[in-house]
């Protein structure tokens, strides 16, 4: 690589951040100075500071450079390189003593300072002292300057961050607006009768918290209009102007009869709809309730039926258990049961035929069928056991004497009878 080219590049590079370099150098010097001071204190040298600094700088540098060079080597690399290039091509200078380096650095410093800052050069002695005090400040400054630099570089990297959102320019030319207002304004003064202009301005601005809340918004408008109407009416009446339309004044309206009819229909329809829905709701409720009533009634009926059946069963048992007749309740059901049992019993023989006389005559005069074998037994008569009673077998065959006593029933039966 050609020397000149390198130098060019380096110069270009240097040109970009000259003040950084300078600051670094200044910092370095300051640091050295500090150490020097410390050392001086140790040595208890009372001589003039500035002279001391100037005179002993080289030596002290030599003493301290070991540490310094290590610390600052990264910072100073560029400077060193530069000085090398400027002085010679020898690469051995890297291994040179630190003193030389410092020398070169100082030279460099002077060179760089020359074009930039005259003050620094002119008062080098004072500068060193100043730097002791201003070291921290300078560091701060450096930090301050560093941050925006980095920011800038970042912003350069991503272009989107740099785009300012396009904004409409607000034009609000107050003077022109006022002028145009004045040019068209009606000459309304306080003395101008209200009936001429009919305008009312609210005393306080109408404030609507949420414009999208329909109810509050419309209420605000309504109250505004209502206030205006009241005020206007009062003003007009005070001025003696007519306000209310007489009842017999008929004229064309904004909304035609047809339109109003439509509106009326609509309102009626709405009312009817409301009514209908209310009715339907009531009906639904009723239905629900009615069902409950029906269920209750059915249950009641069933209960009655069950009770009745129980009673009947009891009675039947009573009847089956004993001959009864002695302690018969005055139940109408007994009769019914008796009747039912009669019906259920044997038919034919028991059926009432013609009366007795007729029967006799029928027999006598041979009416009605075959007489032959009429007294002889047949299948029916032989199957008929009505006349038979097993208890009769136990009785004496003569039939007289005591009637057989009914046997005593079991306890449960007896209790059931009661």
């Amino acid at each position: 690589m050609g020397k000149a080219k390198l130098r060019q590049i380096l110069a270009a590079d240097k040109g970009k951040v000259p003040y950084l370099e300078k600051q670094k150098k200044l910092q370095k010097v300051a640091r050295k100075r500090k150490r020097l001071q410390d050392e001086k204190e140790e040595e208890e040298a009372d001589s003039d500071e500035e002279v001391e600094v100037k005179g002993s700088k080289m030596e002290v540098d030599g003493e301290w450079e070991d540490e310094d060079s290590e610390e600052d080597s990264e910072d100073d690399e560029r400077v060193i390189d530069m000085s090398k290039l400027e002085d010679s091509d020898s690469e051995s200078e890297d291994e040179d003593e630190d003193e030389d380096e410092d020398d070169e650095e100082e030279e460099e410093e002077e060179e760089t300072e020359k074009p930039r800052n005259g003050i620094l050069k002119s008062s080098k002695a004072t500068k060193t002292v100043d730097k002791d005090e201003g070291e921290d400040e300078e560091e701060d400054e450096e930090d301050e300057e560093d941050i925006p630099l980095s920011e800038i570089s970042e912003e350069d990297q991503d272009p989107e961050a740099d785009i300012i959102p396009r904004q409409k320019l607000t034009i609000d030319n107050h003077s022109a607006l006022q002028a145009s207002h004045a040019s068209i304004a009606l000459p309304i003064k306080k003395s101008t009768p209200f009936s001429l202009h009919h305008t009312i301005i609210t005393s306080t601005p109408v404030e609507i918290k949420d414009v999208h809340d329909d109810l509050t918004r419309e209420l605000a408008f309504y109250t505004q209009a209502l206030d205006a109407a009241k005020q206007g009416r009062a003003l007009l009446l005070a001025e003696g102007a007519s306000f209310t339309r007489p009842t017999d004044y008929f004229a064309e309206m904004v909304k035609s009869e047809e339109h109003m009819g439509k509106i009326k229909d609509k309102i009626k329809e709405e009312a009817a709809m409301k009514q209908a829905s209310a009715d339907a709701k009531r009906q639904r409720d009723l239905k629900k309730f009615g069902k409950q009533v029906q269920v209750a009634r059915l249950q009641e009926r069933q209960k009655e039926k069950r009770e009745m059946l129980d009673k009947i069963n009891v009675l039947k048992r009573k009847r089956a258990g004993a001959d009864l007749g002695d302690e018969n309740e005055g139940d109408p059901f007994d009769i019914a049961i008796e009747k039912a049992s009669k019906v259920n019993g044997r038919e034919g023989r028991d059926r009432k035929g013609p009366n007795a006389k007729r029967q006799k005559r029928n027999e006598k005069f041979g009416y009605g069928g075959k007489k032959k074998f009429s007294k002889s037994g047949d299948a029916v008569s032989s199957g008929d056991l009505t006349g038979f009673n097993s208890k009769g077998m136990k009785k004496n065959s003569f039939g007289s004497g005591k009637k057989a006593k009914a046997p005593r029933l079991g306890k449960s039966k007896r209790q059931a009878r009661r």
Partner: protein
Amino acid sequence: MSAVLKSVTDARSTKSKEEATDSSSGPDKKFRQRVLILSSRGVTYRHRHLLQDLSSLLPHSRKDSKLDTKSKLFQLNELADLYNCNNILFFEARKREDLYMWMSKPPNGPTIKFHVQNLHTMEELHFSGNCLKGSRPILSFDKSFEEKPYLMVVKEMMTQMFGVPKGARKSKPFVDHVMSFTVADGKVWIRCYQICEAEVGKKDAKENGDEEEEDAGKKSKKTGRSQTDISLLEIGPRLVLTPIIIQEGSFGGPIIYENKEYVSPNVLRAEYRNRRAQKFNVRSAQKVGREIKKKALRLDKHRVGGGGGKDWEELQAGLKDLFQE
């Protein structure tokens, strides 16, 4: 009856005039206003109905046929001059959905352009309010109209447009409706209400006031006022106006006000479309990504539903054989 009424009103009006002249001690200046109402081409039925409503509410207006052009609006000045109008209310419809309202004072007054939103005409609003055709409204303005210069201009223009001047040709001498103008959310909200009076003592008080002496009349009026109950019924139409620009001249001249907050409906629609498109783009990108991922994993072959792959073809062939048998 009407004759009697006329005589009464005449007497009253002359009286009031005298009073006015006495009080103002200047020339009783009549505010002459005439409004030219017209629209551009391409309005929808709603816009047309709004025009109808406004012209019926403003007896001092002149309705004209649709204007053919949307770019050469200065022609309106000549038109207004032709019809002897000193106000122009021009409705410009765009894309059959957006409505812009231009208000102008023709010879050299300012021009305001509004965007009309939340438009509801009388026809579709089934409000039970109604008022005389040609009665003069009371204009109620929000206090905030006086706070900013541009709103002052807007207020002045609206006063002249919507306020029916006294003694206008078709106007009626009674007051039975209120128009309210409110500024909320940077927009002007317009409502129109009918004034309903409970008739308790109102008429009596008035008659008394006419007949009796002034003091007594005032008293009775006062009592009448306290007795009457005023309520409002909305008439319609409803609309919300967003001011966009104010020009110094009539359909021309420098812009002296521009609303920064106004966003064109076109922009809104475009944004909405973009958002939806973005959704689709993201989804399709995801789909492609998924496909690539699957390919990379070689999942396609083993998937029964997926096409391609040796296994798949074998399976297909097997199935075909099965069904043929």
